[in-house]
């Protein structure tokens, strides 16, 4: 083993994770290489120096803060929450679908009237309604007199527009 190859096994050798054969290889090299032996001594010392770093203790309120944050974790309710597939939802959608198909496929029950007879019926109904309305108005009891009153025919067909100030 040369110095360059040793570098790949260096860390495992010092942290104790190297296999027995790897350890033997490293130690054999250290016996023959003064520079690497010197570096190995420094690494051993470095390992001890790094252990001097004291541990940091969490603050007294740390646990309580975690519990508070976890407890405040309410299940998130979104507007799509209801859309989670469920048997109830599937049943409702199926019913809706069946009803839609049934309504769409239902034959029409009312026969459409011919256009000409429909117009005639409409006109007759309209004149009857007009007559009934006029007949019911007390001011227009004598309909014949009023319709044949000549003075009324001199009046303009439409009443004059009211001035805006009178509104």
């Amino acid at each position, binding site marked *: 083993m040369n110095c360059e190859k040793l570098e790949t096994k260096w860390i495992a050798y010092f942290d104790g994770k190297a296999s027995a054969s790897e350890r033997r290889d490293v130690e054999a090299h250290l016996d023959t290489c003064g520079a690497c032996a010197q570096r190995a*001594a420094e690494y051993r010392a470095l390992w001890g120096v790094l252990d001097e770093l004291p541990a940091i203790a969490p603050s007294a309120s740390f*646990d309580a803060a975690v519990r508070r944050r976890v*407890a405040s974790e309410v299940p998130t309710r979104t507007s799509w929450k209801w859309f989670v597939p469920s048997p109830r939802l599937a049943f409702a959608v199926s019913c809706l679908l069946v009803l839609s198909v049934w309504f769409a496929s239902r034959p029409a029950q009312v026969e459409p009237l011919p256009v000409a007879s429909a117009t005639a019926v409409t006109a007759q109904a309209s004149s009857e309604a007009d007559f009934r309305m006029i007949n019911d108005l007390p001011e227009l009891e004598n309909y014949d007199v009023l319709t044949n009153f000549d003075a009324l025919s001199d009046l303009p067909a439409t009443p004059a527009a009211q001035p805006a100030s009178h509104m």
Partner: protein
Amino acid sequence: MRALEPVNGPQLSDPTRVRYNVEAMVRSDVQLMLDVKATGDEVSFELLLRKYRCPLVNFLARMVRDRGMAEELAQEVFLRVYRARKGYAPSAKFTTWMFRIASNLALNAIRDGRYRQLEISMDQSVEIGDDRAPSWEVADRRPGAEQELIARDRAAIIQRAIEQLPDKQRAAVLLHKYQELDYDEIARILECSEAALKSLLFRAYETLRVQLAPLVGQQKS
């Protein structure tokens, strides 16, 4: 094994349900997490919290160089673990999963520049001894004030040397030296191959060997 005291948390724990016992303590992390997943077991989550709060805060504090930020991030890690309980699948070690979350959060926080350089807060966390203690008492049972000061200075130098490492090298050293994780775990956490990790570690320790040469020299002699 140290016995856990009952939990006094306002929301998570119900005193009637407190059942810390030896059996609960020897359950594996994966089993504890599976219990949290299956039933939302608060006691199992509490055990995980108690077991990993210190390692997480230590790792994160040295990653982001700010204790306050480290605690916030550690809380976030626990919260994410809790949130992800339903989808938890024990395909890897629990520590791998947890430190991967922590490492990603730390690297993102560093990248976002949200961390602050507060060495004072780090110094405050160092629990070496009480400066106010009378010297005769220190001389009797503990290192003297001068030794205490030296130890504190040495710790600050080591801390600074670790902080000056590139982010990924620092994470690798913290997980390897201080969390004592296996290579395959660290490689998974940092998303690199084992060979790349060993190379990363070698470069990091070489830098530390040079940076800490004065302390290393003293240690040798």
